[in-house]
């Protein structure tokens, strides 16, 4: 199956390993992965910060890049939710752009959702003999309704010791520009999450959004807590580089 990878701006610039892992896992699942170098961002940062006009400009560019793609996969629940639920609304009703955005929305998949629901992957024989916990990122959970797919994939790994954390569905406190606008509140909410992670005794916290994980990693390192972050794509990738 041919898929076009929207790697997201954050993965592209700061977490390339996540993208490389996503490519390897998709290829192992039988996909032919295409990466269009014109891609940048879905527009969400501006959209969520109160700049819909700037978001629309970036979204138009997104339409140009991905308009012809047969199927778009992205390793982010938040970006997938932006594309699927908010992109069309940025354009005037009945406009050509609105129609193109709707078409793109209907063929966009978040990474875990794509593997489980579209490809029907139910288990991977990657080995990972470590205690792992999973954080439900908000937009993946509440806007896309995905909570079972990543868990199923995690549980399928060889030797995995999966431990649910308390309130896994509670926000990590990142919230995009909220993380700097209300940095103290953002960190306080994040520390609640860190506490929940610690209580499980897990060595790794896994999620489907690197933005949440970047925030948690920042807190974990500052507090010298010995728990590492892993994007689901990295966890599933048997050729991952240990982060």
């Amino acid at each position: 199956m041919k898929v076009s990878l929207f790697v997201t701006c954050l993965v592209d610039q700061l977490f390339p390993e996540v993208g490389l892992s996503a490519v390897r896992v998709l290829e192992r699942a039988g996909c032919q992965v295409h990466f269009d170098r014109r891609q940048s961002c879905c527009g969400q940062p501006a959209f969520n910060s109160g700049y819909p006009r700037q978001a629309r400009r970036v979204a138009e560019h997104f339409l140009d890049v991905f308009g012809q793609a047969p199927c778009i996969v992205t390793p982010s629940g938040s970006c997938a939710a932006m594309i699927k639920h908010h992109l069309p609304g940025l354009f005037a009703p009945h406009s050509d752009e609105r129609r193109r955005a709707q078409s793109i929305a209907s063929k966009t998949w978040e990474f875990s959702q794509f593997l489980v629901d579209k490809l029907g992957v139910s288990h991977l024989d990657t080995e990972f003999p470590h205690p792992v916990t999973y954080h439900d990122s908000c937009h993946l959970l509440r806007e896309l309704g995905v909570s079972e797919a990543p868990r199923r994939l995690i549980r399928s790994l060889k030797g995995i010791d999966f431990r649910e954390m308390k309130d896994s569905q509670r926000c990590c406190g990142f919230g995009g520009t909220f993380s700097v606008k209300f940095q103290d509140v953002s960190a306080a909410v994040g520390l609640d999450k860190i506490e929940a992670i610690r209580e499980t005794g897990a060595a790794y916290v896994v999620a489907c959004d690197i933005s949440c994980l970047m925030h948690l990693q920042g807190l974990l390192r500052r507090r010298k807590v010995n728990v590492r972050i892993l994007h689901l794509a990295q966890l599933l990738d048997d050729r991952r580089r240990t982060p």
Partner: protein
Amino acid sequence: MIEIRRNTARALADDQLQRNLAHALGHTLQARDRAVGEVEDWEQLRRYARQVKAHTLARLDRYLGQLEGRVKEQGGEVIWARDAQEACRFIVELAGRKGVREVVKSKTMAGEEIHLNQALEQAGIVPVESDLGEYLVQLEGVPPSHIIAPALHLSRGDAARLMHEKVGMELTEDVQRITAEARRQLRRRFLEAGMGISGVNFAVAESGTLVVVENEGNARLSVSAPPIHVAVMGLEKVVPRVEDLAVLLKVLIRSATGQSVSSYINFLNGPRREGEIDGPDEFYLVLIDNGRSRILADEHLRETLYCLRCGACQNVCPVYQRIGGHAYESTYQGPIGAILTPQLLSLQEAPEHPFASSLCGACQEVCPVGIEIPRILLELRGRAKKRSNAGSKLEAFAWRLWSLLMTHPRLYSATSAFLRHPLRVLLHLGLTPPPLNRWTVSRHLPAVPAAPFRSRFPAD
């Protein structure tokens, strides 16, 4: 202008407040989840409740007219107040005309919104709050910090100290005794007060019935013991039919307190009639607009008025859970306050409210009428930016620059390549340029990789 950001540090550093919030909200959330779990068709009930509100608001003039007619038929009076001032003026003048010196009040958020207590006090009339939580915050001299639990920010010890300092009660943390003392203090006031003021949860248009939901019995006393009852309600509280209450009460109560039903639900139909033992001689219903018709006229914001004031969004909000209600400096706090406050006041007055959210969406998920709070937050964020002042010009410029980069692939790649190395050096030296320095107050930055994904694909 309200600046929430100036209040967060103090709230976060207040260990007692943090303990009180965690304790109280944890319990309420558990109770709510249990109560909702018991109802098989919860989602269907939510949808129905939402439809009732949508239907009513689309015909608000008709239903309010019907309500007014029924209330008058039953011997009550209806007063239309354009804003807080008009509402307060009417109530204060009425009290003056009737020689009322003391007013006993049961919980009313509309009353808080119009600052009724201050208006009464200025006229030399003593308002006495009869809801235990309201009574405590009145003793403390602060506004309520939660829609349903006004004294949520107080611990048992705080309550004991207040009762000791303000009422002269001996210092005890025995809740039974504190409650008993509050009741003793209040009973007298119910009998002596010349006027009782209450809020309204629902007003039924077809029957002119006001519904007041409570757990302490204080509302029942407030509306029946004094000779005059004044009910204050926002325009949006009207519902068409008695049978709608079957659903609305169910979703309200389970969402608010996690009870299957509250201890008291009062159905009030005007003043006491001949042959009746209880009830006021005079009854007034004050319908408050105070910005609501403006909200109603705005299709993007309208559903803010669906709110039943259950407080569930506050309980579940990670931001509210950490900063509490007072940090918002507004009558309505938490997610519903974040969208309602800038609409009732103005975005200039409450510019930070729509930004005090991580957009996690837990509020919409828990809302008994499914108000799309995140969407409305975004709508308001966009409007706040349109009126931005000189201070945020730089921010606007940064976003324009950002959109330029994101739409020009070569420029994007070149900028990334150009900045990557210097940024790595700076961060290596422990220097963080703004706005990154706001990130690093409490977090480490991720290591900046030597090359982006695009230059490493296809994988090796």
